[in-house]
C-alpha cells in the first residue's frame, strides 16, 4: 500500500481547470519530484493534497480516504507542507515558530528539526532578521518539527545558487534515506530534481504528461516539448 495515492484529482477555479484528473502514488521512504513549466498546476497540486483547495477525485493516505478532511486534520495525520512564500510567523521567534508545529514522540522535536537543517543558531531570532536562504531552511525545519509522514515542499530551493542547491538536495536525500520522512518535492530547478529524486511526475496545463525515474523522464520527448516547445 502506498503512503499517498491520488486518484483522478481535479481542481477547478471558476472556469479554469488548474489540475485535470491527475493520479499518482508516493511510496513511503522515497523522494518524489513534481515538475512542470509555469502554470502547470504544481502548487495547486500541493494545495489539493493538504486540503487548502477543493478538489474532486480521491486522495488516500495509507489507504484511508482523506479527501473530505479539513486542512488541520490532514496536517495532524502527518501531511505537512511548506509554502512558496514561506509564511513564517514574523511575530514569533524561530523556536516559537517550530513549537507551533511541534509534534511527535521524540524528546525535543524543535531542536532536532533545527539540527537537521543546520539552522540551530537561529533559534531565538525573529524571521525578519534572517537572510532569505536561511529563512527557507527554517521553513523546512518548521515543517519537520511536526514529524511528518509526508513532507510536501513547495519550491524550497528558489533563489539558491548551484552550490547551495546541491547541499540542500543532499539534506533532503539524507532525510529520506534515514527514514525520517517521505518527501514530495515541487520545484523549478530541474537539475535538483533530477539529482535527488527517486521518481518524478511531470505536469503541464494541469495534466500529467510523464512520470517515472529521472532517466526516463529526462529522455521523454513530451517533457522536452513542454519545456522547450519542440523535440529535444
Amino acid at each position, binding site marked *: 500500500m502506498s503512503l499517498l495515492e491520488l486518484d483522478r484529482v481535479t481542481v477547478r477555479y471558476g472556469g479554469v481547470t488548474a489540475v485535470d484528473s491527475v493520479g499518482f502514488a508516493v511510496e513511503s521512504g522515497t523522494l518524489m519530484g513534481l515538475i512542470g513549466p509555469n502554470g502547470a498546476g504544481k502548487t495547486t497540486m500541493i494545495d489539493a493534497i*493538504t*486540503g*487548502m483547495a477543493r478538489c474532486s477525485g480521491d486522495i488516500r493516505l495509507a489507504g484511508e480516504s482523506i479527501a473530505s478532511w*479539513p*486542512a*488541520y*486534520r490532514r*496536517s*495532524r495525520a502527518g501531511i*505537512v*507542507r511548506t*509554502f512558496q512564500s514561506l*509564511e*513564517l*510567523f*514574523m*511575530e*514569533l521567534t524561530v523556536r*516559537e515558530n517550530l*513549537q*507551533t*508545529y511541534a*509534534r511527535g514522540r521524540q524528546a525535543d522535536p524543535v531542536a532536532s528539526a533545527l539540527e537537521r537543517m*543546520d539552522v540551530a*543558531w*537561529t533559534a531565538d*531570532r525573529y524571521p525578519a*532578521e*534572517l*537572510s532569505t536562504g*536561511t529563512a527557507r531552511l527554517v521553513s523546512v525545519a518548521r*515543517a519537520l518539527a*511536526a514529524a511528518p509522514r509526508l513532507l510536501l515542499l513547495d519550491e524550497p530551493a528558489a533563489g539558491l545558487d548551484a*552550490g547551495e542547491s546541491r*547541499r540542500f538536495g*543532499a*539534506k533532503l*536525500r*539524507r532525510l529520506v*534515506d534515514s527514514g525520517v520522512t517521505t518527501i514530495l518535492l515541487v520545484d523549478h530547478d530541474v537539475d535538483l530534481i533530477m*539529482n*535527488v*529524486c*527517486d521518481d518524478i511526475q511531470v505536469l503541464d496545463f494541469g495534466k500529467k504528461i510523464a512520470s517515472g*525515474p*529521472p532517466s526516463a523522464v529526462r529522455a521523454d520527448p513530451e517533457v522536452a516539448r513542454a519545456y522547450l516547445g519542440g523535440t529535444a
Partner: protein
Amino acid sequence: MAVLQFALLGLGLGGAYALLALGLVTIYRGTGVLNFSQGAVAMICAYVFFALRDGLRLSTAGAALLAAAFAVVLGLAFYLLVMRQLRNSPVLARIIATLALLLLLQGLAMLLFDVQTRTPVSVVPATPVDLLGIAIPMDRLILAGVAVVLAVALSLVSRRTRIGLAVRAISDSEKGASLSGLSPVLIGALTWAVGFVLAAVAGVMLSPIAGLDAKALTLLVVPVFAAALIARFTSFGVAVAAGLGLGMVESALQLVTDAEGAWYTWLWTGPGRSQALPALVVIIAMIFSGRLLPARGEVVRGRLPISPPPRYRVAGPIIALAAGLAFIFSVRPSWLSAGVVTLAGVMIALSAVLVTGFIGQISLAQVAFAGTGGMLTALLSSAGLPFLLVLPLSGLVAALLGLLAGLPSLRVRGPSLALVTLSAAYICQVAVFSDGRLLGGQGYNRVASPALFGLELGGTGFAVVTLVIVIVTGSLVAALRVSTFGRRALAVRENEAAAAAAGIDIKRFKLAAFTLSAFVAGVGGSLLGYQANVFAFERFTIFESLHVIAMAYIGGIGMVSGALFAGLGASGGLFSQLLATWGADSYQLVIAGGALLLAVQLHPDGMAATLHTIRERRGRRSSPAPAAAPPDDGKDRSAPAEPSVPVK
C-alpha cells in the same frame, strides 16, 4: 393599515439611510475605509448649517455654501492628517481612527452647541402630500428623491469621467494606479471630501425630520452599514435602493412588533424589534455570503499591534495588589466607586485583549457580553442566589452568547467581522437589554448586595474582592500568552493558512477565544451590577463597546497592561472621576477622541507597547546583538557531513 401604505411612510427613515449609505460607499470605493463616523459628520455639519442660518441669520444659500466648505475642509483634514498616515496600518487601526473622529465630533458638538434636541425649520417645503390615501409630508419624498438623484449622478461620474475611472482603478490596485500617473493622494482627498459633503447633505435634510441633536444621527450607523453592505460597498444605486428599502421595511414592521401575545411572540414583538432588523440583515447576509466586502487590491498585510510576552509576571500582580489595597483603604467613597468601575473596565478590556489582541478577531461586542452578565446578575441575585454563584453563572451565560457571536468569525474576518459583532451588540442594546419583560417587569432590576460567606460586603470589602478577581484574571491572561495557547493564538492571528498547516483547528480555536473572552466580559458586567446594586442597561451600549476597544487600543490591545489603561479611561472610571474633580468632565469625549487620533498614529502598537519598545531599545543599545549570520565555529557548512549520496 395596508402594509404598502405603512411602508411609504418609512420613506423619511429610508431616505436617511440612503443618503448616509451613499457617503459610506463613496469613501470605501476611494480609500477602502469603513467610516464609522459618517453619522457624526452629518450631525456636526448640520449643526454648522443651522447655526449659520438660524443663529447668524445668513441666507439659506450662504449657509449651505459655508457648511459645504466646512465639510470639505473637515474631510480633507481628516484624510491628509490621519487616514493618509495610516494607509499601511492594520485594518483595526483604520477602524479605530474613524471611531476616534466619532468621539471627537460628538464631544465638540456637545461643547460648542446646545445639544438639546431641536427641530429646525426644514430647508425644503414640508406640506403633506396625498399618496395612496396617506398624508406624507413632502420633505420625506424630496429626501428620497435627492438620494436617488445623487446616486445617479455618482454612478455617471464613476462610469463616464476620468476621475471616476481613476477611483475605480485605485480600488483595484493602488500601486498599479499610481504607476500610471494617478495620484492616490488626490483621489483619496477627493473621496473623503465628497463623502463628507454627502454626509452634510444628509444631516441638513434629515434634521427637520429626525430632530437635531448630538446623538440621533450618530446612532444610525448600524442600519446605514446594512444598506451599504447590501450594495457590497460598490454600487451607488443599490445602496440607495437598500437604504430606502430598509427604512420602508422597518416602518412596515411596526405593524406587527406591537402586538401582545404569548411568550414565543417575544421574538418579534416588543422594544426595538423593528430597529434590530437591519442589524439582523447584516449578520445573516454576512454569514451566508462569506465575504461581502470586496477586498482591495493593495494587500495590506499591515502588522497588528504587537503582543510581546509579558514581563513582571510575578512582580506585576504583587505591586498591583499592594497599590490597589493602599488605594482602597485611603480614598473617599466617590473615588472608591470610580476605582471599582475601573477594575470592571479592566476585566472587559482583558476580554478584548483575549479575542482581538491575542487572536486577532476584531470584536466590537465586548460590552454586549458584559451586559449579558449584568442582566443575568440582576435576575439571579433577585432569585436569591449568592454572590459566589452568580458571578461565574453570569459569566457562563455570557460565554454562551460569545460562542454564538463567534460563529460568524468562522466565515468572515477583519472589518466584516467588526460589522457583524457591532450588529450583534446593537441587537442586544435595542431589543434585549431594554426589554422590560426580560427584566422582570419592574422596568429594571435591582441587584442584591454582595455577601461573602454570610458577611455582607461593604464598599471596601467589595472593592478588595473585585481587586483580587481582576488581578487573578490578569495573571491568567498573561500566563495564557506565554503558553502553547498563546503561541497558537498569535499564529492564528497572523497567518491562518500556516496555522492550519501546523495542525491547529482554526475554527475550534476562534470559537474558544470568543467563548473565553465573553466569559471574562460577563464577569466584568456582573461586577458592575454588584457595585451599583442595579443592572443599568443604558451602560451597555454599542458606544461603550467602541469606547472600550478604542481605549484598549491606545493602551495596547495585545498586552495585559493595555487593558489596565483601558480600565482607567472607562466612563465612570478613575480618569473620568479626575476630570469631574477638575470640573472638566464635559471635555471627556473631546479628550478621548483627540488622544485616540494622535495615539493611533504615534503609537500604533499602543502606549504600553511603546514603553516596552523603549525598554527593549535601551537594553539592546547596551549589549548590541551580533549580526544574524551563521556562527563562526569552524564547522564547515559548505560540505555535507556525510558522504554525498550518489546521484541517481
